């Protein structure tokens, strides 16, 4: 379990991370979300003892990182896939890492096999594509078979097969009881991978809850209705106390009335229904609603809604 208490990091007067508290529990995949510059990478570097907190603490398994001996057996991380010397082969890069923590040489071959780089193991990393760098980084994280794993943008550059592979990998790691923290911008992937979400914005914790709760909180009970006679359907629904909006394309968006009740109402008033559908918010919508205020770097052109 990763635990942070009042964790703060200040860079030249500005708090990149501002007194955050969180727990990352084992057995679930925890997604770390937030706009660019929100403090995700800084937090991950502090978990790994690479950046020293200005104040507050962060521990893994109850202990800080700095004093750990041979930490790769307990914590594995993919922070920056390109942090490889281009003149070195993939094999030697992992071999030096393994040797530093007393990990056997054959484990290096094992992880290279696991990530699909066995055929290019002895080639210089300088010639790798982005996806190959990512796989090498993931191999490095898996080297010590650790109980805690941190991934910063692991899907970046992977082909569709690779994306499904890493998603399955992360879920199976969590299913084995490990602690998995994933930071990503790819909402669609995050929605399929993460069970629990930490949302950070401008250095502060905005949300810390299970995925289902976040989505439900944002969904409300909304129903999409298509009918032969939209106007009178809408009028009937309003009489029944629901909020009705006419969406472009001829759909009614109804809030405040269950779909069951809408169906019964339509039948009672003799309306023909073409579509009656419960709408759940997407992670993307929920995320935008949450972080609307905390986006640090915003494009001038508004997102089409």
């Amino acid at each position: 379990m990763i635990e942070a208490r009042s964790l703060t990091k200040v860079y030249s007067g500005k708090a990149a991370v501002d007194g955050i508290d969180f727990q990352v529990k084992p057995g679930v995949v925890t997604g770390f979300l937030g706009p660019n510059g929100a403090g995700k990478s800084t937090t991950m570097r502090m978990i790994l003892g690479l950046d020293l907190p200005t104040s507050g603490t962060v521990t893994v398994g109850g202990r800080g990182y700095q004093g750990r001996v041979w930490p790769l057996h307990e914590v594995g991380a993919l922070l920056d896939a390109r942090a490889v010397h281009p003149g070195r082969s993939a094999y030697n890069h992992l071999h030096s890492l393994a040797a530093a923590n007393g990990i056997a040489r054959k484990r290096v071959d094992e992880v290279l096999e696991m990530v699909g780089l066995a055929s290019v193991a002895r080639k210089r990393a300088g010639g790798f594509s982005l996806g190959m760098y990512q796989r090498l980084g993931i191999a490095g994280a898996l080297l010590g078979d650790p109980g805690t794993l941190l991934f910063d943008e692991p899907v970046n550059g992977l082909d569709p097969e690779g994306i499904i592979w890493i998603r399955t990998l992360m879920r199976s790691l969590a299913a084995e009881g490990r602690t998995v923290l994933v930071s990503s911008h790819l909402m669609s992937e995050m929605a399929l991978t993460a069970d629990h979400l930490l949302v950070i914005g401008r250095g502060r914790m905005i949300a810390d809850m299970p995925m289902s709760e976040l989505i439900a909180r944002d969904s409300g009970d909304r129903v999409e209705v298509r009918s032969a006679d939209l106007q009178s359907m809408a009028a009937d629904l309003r009489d029944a106390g629901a909020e009705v909006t006419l969406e472009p394309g001829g759909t009614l968006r109804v809030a405040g009335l269950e779909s069951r009740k809408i169906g019964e109402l339509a039948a009672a008033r003799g309306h023909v229904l073409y579509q009656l559908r419960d709408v759940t918010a997407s992670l993307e919508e929920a995320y935008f609603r949450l972080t609307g205020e905390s986006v640090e770097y915003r494009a001038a052109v508004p997102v089409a809604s």
Partner: protein
Amino acid sequence: MSTVMAASGAGSAGHAPPAAHRRAWAVLAAEWIKLRSLRSMLVTPLLGAIACVGLADLAVRHHATGWPHLDAVQRAQFDPLAINFNFVTLGILLFGVLGALVVTNEYGSGVIRTTLAATPQRGLVLAAKAVLVGPGSFALAMVIIFGAFFTGQGILSGAHAPHLSLSDHHVLVHLLGMAGYMAAAGLLGLFTGVLVRSAAVAVTSMFGLLLVLPLMADKITPNALTRHTVPYLPMNLGDRMLRPIQGLSPGVAVAGLAAWVLVLAAAAAFSLRGRDA
């Protein structure tokens, strides 16, 4: 591609903490693998070694052929050791730059973060690098120096010029001193690299500090300020160690050089531990 982890249980958190000597060995092994797996770090010392021995060879040959034509005064001044080891400056630079590159390579590529994540005890990482650079430089320097010595003195004896052997007065000490000098330069380079983190700045500083500064300091006629500072530049200390003149005994010179190394080592250790990776 496998989709499932090798069945070794969810993490090996239950292993017993390794003994101190195993930890030290592990860090050292990792540093050695990093060093030997980079072609540039193998080729550069090799080329440098060839250049050094080659330079020595050329110089000695020239003096050997000129020996018969020297007059009595010149013959009295003939110094077989000085002739053989004119390349010392080059060697110092070579090791200084290599020492810096060992570290700046990691900062440049970002590998330093992986290294420090694997071994959070940063003092241990620095010590391992120092063990590799210091004694490693010493060993390589010995190979170069002894190689140059035997070939050079061999040429001199072949030309019937004065030459030395290892058993001669003070020769072995002198050779060891030169190797120590080069090892010190390597360490100075390493610690400078940790402090400045950039290859460009480190290489420029090495050339500036080790080579250009003493050359220029020589050109200032001595005054009170220079008398108390210039002799203590690392290169000048090294020179005094090898060629004692009045005012600075070799023992003091060795201590001075060691002091330079230790001070930079402490600064590097503080910098590494106190700063973000």
